[in-house]
């Protein structure tokens, strides 16, 4: 029915110059805009990067009295993920700053645009920025704490939980930051909403990362279970966010 209607409108001449683009095309346009804007101003990446380094410095001071040894490996899985969570919180808070500046959010909503495309584009851009910061921060973490302990040789597998976790964080984070971006006291509110909701993903990713860092037999059982659950969380939550996004963005 919709195509026939579209044909009819073509004939009506007035909006002849508009051929409604496919959702993927709109997704690409939105994503390109986000990336171009961010790589030009770089305010989100730079602030997240500096914040991550500062968090590592705080960890350094906090652990300066801990005696090095294998226990450090058990702890560092959690430390890494607290670094990722707080850095992504900072990034998510600013993810809509460009949109809010000149009322551009409404400019987007005026276009015949599938709201899901907005969600996916913003989520993808958040994932990209988070990964860039993680690629810098995680090796830096191990550099600074190399004197404490060297992780097991399976440590490179840490990339998998990091990836799964970042996608989950960006998914849910985009929905929650769309909610909190227009409210008072938005940074506290985003953290207050974000941490409990992301808790299961965090729990699974920390256990997966710790298993990978310690290596040996622990890897076998916990890693697979944790990753499967983390991916499960991602799928459920991102689907729910995608469906709910339409209500939230046009509220």
């Amino acid at each position, binding site marked *: 029915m919709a195509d026939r209607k579209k044909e009819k409108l073509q004939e009506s001449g007035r909006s002849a110059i508009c051929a409604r683009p496919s959702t993927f095309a709109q997704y690409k346009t939105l994503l390109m805009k986000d990336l171009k804007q961010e790589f030009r101003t770089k305010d989100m990446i730079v602030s997240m990067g500096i914040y991550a380094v500062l968090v590592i410095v705080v960890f350094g001071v906090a652990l300066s009295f801990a005696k090095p040894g294998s226990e450090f490996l058990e702890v560092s899985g959690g430390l890494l993920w607290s670094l990722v969570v707080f850095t992504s919180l900072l990034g998510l808070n600013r993810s809509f700053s460009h949109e809010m500046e000149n009322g551009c959010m409404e400019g987007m909503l005026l276009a015949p645009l599938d709201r899901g495309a907005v969600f996916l584009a913003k989520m993808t851009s958040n994932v990209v920025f988070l990964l860039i910061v993680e690629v810098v921060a995680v090796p830096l973490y191990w550099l600074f704490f190399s004197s404490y302990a060297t992780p097991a040789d399976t440590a490179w597998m840490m990339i998998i939980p990091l990836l799964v976790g970042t996608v989950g964080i960006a998914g*849910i984070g985009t929905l929650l930051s769309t909610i909190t971006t227009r409210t008072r006291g938005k940074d506290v509110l985003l953290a207050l909403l974000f941490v409990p*909701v992301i808790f299961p993903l965090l729990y699974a990713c920390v256990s997966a990362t710790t298993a990978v860092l310690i290596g040996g037999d622990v890897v076998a059982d916990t890693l697979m279970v944790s990753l499967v659950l983390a991916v499960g969380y991602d799928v459920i939550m991102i689907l729910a966010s995608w469906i709910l996004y339409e209500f*939230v963005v046009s509220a």
Partner: protein
Amino acid sequence: MGKSKGASPKLPEVGQWPDKIAPAVAIAGIVLTTLGFLMAFFYVPPVAGAAVDGVELIGGMMVANKLLISQKIFYFHMPVAMVSFVALAFSCYYGVRFLMTREWRYDTCSAIAIEIALVFVVATMATGEMWTRFEWGVWWTWEPRLTTYLVLMLIVIAYFVLRSAVDEPERRGVFCSVIAIIATIDVPICFAITRLIPSSIHPVVLREGGMSGEMGMCVALVAAGMFCIGFALYRARFGQVRLAQRVEAMKESLED
């Protein structure tokens, strides 16, 4: 998401059938919980604790373990937790209804339901806290059940902070409904993940184990009682909030 054309669906309102049975349900709740309380302490045998080097004949049974009274907390702890989940599920249901029809009444119902959930989660945390304090001698352990309730309480608190942070009614309704839905999806996942992933640091102590017949019956009795109390509280709060809203509406109509 078309507008609901035609007669607007029958909105939950004060004075409908639930309000007629609310007082009776309240009394039933009180009766059932007191019965459950008495049953927990006098009818159901205490759970066996650590072994004792010796045997004693008590009440026609050979007892070789410490008898734990502290486990009695469980008979109220579990039902209260169940009610809090059901209340959250109701809040999610009304949230979905609000998003579909944008009727304000559903937003009010969703907020009240999650308020009931908060009351019962706080009760769950209180009883859980007492049990942890005695069972493991510490005020808090990151044991799966406790952490899940903590996460649930945090989300519900976040719901109310969000509710007060947004002024515009339409936007507040949509945001709060979405959070109620996300919370209802998130909590079961919390439950599952914290149980399925064996946290290597300290193994999950599965205290409940099998429930004997009497224990199960007692829990069921208290649970029924708690559901009645929860329902009665919901209706009472709903009546009070509706009265306040009607007063507000009158104030506004008198102004212009």
